[in-house]
């Protein structure tokens, strides 16, 4: 049975990796989501379809893609990213970016036309409109962030392949569940699984709290 400190380490690694991945994915998905949703261009339909289909990319596939790119033989091998938390962040980013972008595109396409009319008459620039949309409808964006974060922190396969499940460094919650279960320490798997569930419950409650106040 690993010490509590190792379990806590795994939780911290999971939180760190998935939080940063979600931060990046959220920023980029607002940026690209806004661009795609508010304009008409030739490839729009295809890009939206591709994004949609990428939402269900299997984690191991995302892991494999990143692995091929960052291993020594790959194009970015010189960056020495394999077996680092950064690699895990990149892999999780790939998993959650499509779904967050798709959700934001859907939301903006609904809201933007109405909001735009009103705000442009007040002299708002495009950037202002997006910022106002985010600030006003916090709960929608919070929901999207939570969906992304939830998907990132509970995935197993992507971070495991590119991170290597290294003790203290890249062994996150899901990697530890897999390792300890394989070693027969079922209790650890249950504990960490319960932690994940409690985490998502807490986040859901937080979201609903915000929604009530909107």
């Amino acid at each position, binding site marked *: 049975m690993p010490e509590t400190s190792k379990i806590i380490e795994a939780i911290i690694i999971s939180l760190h990796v998935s939080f940063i991945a979600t931060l*990046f994915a959220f920023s980029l998905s607002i940026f690209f989501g806004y661009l795609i949703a508010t304009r008409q261009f030739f490839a729009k339909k295809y890009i939206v379809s591709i994004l949609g289909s990428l939402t269900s990319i299997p984690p191991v596939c995302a892991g494999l893609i990143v692995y091929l790119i960052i291993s*020594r*033989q790959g194009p970015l091998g010189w960056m020495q990213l394999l077996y*680092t938390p950064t690699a895990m962040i990149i892999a999780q980013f790939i998993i959650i970016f499509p779904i967050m972008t798709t959700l934001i595109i859907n939301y903006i396409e609904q809201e933007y036309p109405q909001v735009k009319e009103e705000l442009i008459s007040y002299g708002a620039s495009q950037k202002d409109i997006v910022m106002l949309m985010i600030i006003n409808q916090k709960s929608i964006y919070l929901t999207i962030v939570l969906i992304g974060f939830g998907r990132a922190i509970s995935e197993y396969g992507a971070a495991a392949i590119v991170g290597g*499940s*290294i003790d203290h460094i890249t062994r996150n919650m899901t990697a530890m569940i897999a*390792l300890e279960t394989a070693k027969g320490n079922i209790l650890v798997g249950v504990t960490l699984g319960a932690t994940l569930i409690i985490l998502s419950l807490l986040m859901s409650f937080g979201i609903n709290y915000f929604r009530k106040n909107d």
Partner: protein
Amino acid sequence: MSFLKLISTFFIFFSISLQARDYIIVQSTTSTANTGLLDILSERFFIQTGIEVRAVAVGTGTAIANAKKGDGDILIVHSKLDELNFIEEGFGVERFDLMYNDFIIVGPKNDPANISNKKDIADVMKQLASSKYKFISRDDNSGTHKKELLLWKTAGLQVPKDNSYLKTGSSMANAINVAVEMQAYLLTDRGTWISFKNKNNLKILFEKNESLFNPYGVIAINPKKFPHVEYQKSKKFINWLLKGEGKQLISNYKVDNQQLFFTYN
């Protein structure tokens, strides 16, 4: 547009901060990892020398393949033939005997195949080849898998092909899990077996035969072939394992009061 600038700054910052590498990567087997040995060795070496050891437990075959692509600094595996080939092909500097233990054959408590009173490994394998008894194979190019294939071969048998021969393609510990579930026979290393917590109804049914000897080797990856490897740090770690405190840690490492790995004198 300022969004893009912000994002690209983040990424550039990340990549710059990663240029210096103060850790070494060890490509190793699941048997060394699942016993907890690699974690202990990494921790102690870091405390003593400040050099971080990142050990990846992927199985012998994968470890060797990864090492051949330059994805590591050190190789610790248990397949002597492949290790010697690795050196011959110029991928490694030198092979050292690191430690050893032995393989065992485990199976259901009541031993339906009746292997526990056999003396000859060939007789044991002949029994296990029968479709009446389930046998779990790792089927993953690991050291254990290679040993299993060798045992079939030296007994003069083909690798079984029927439904009683189950290939998991997984780590040692995972294979034990499957064997427990299916109440099947399995070749495992003693180290993983001792440290495995869910043995249930399985017990050791055949052991202490000279064909079940399990030696581990350690090899530094050749800096001439891969200039980016941290050769000096690797040499330090290898010496520490062979002659320094690492050697003591390995032989003192016990789970359930049993020693898992033995060092050479």
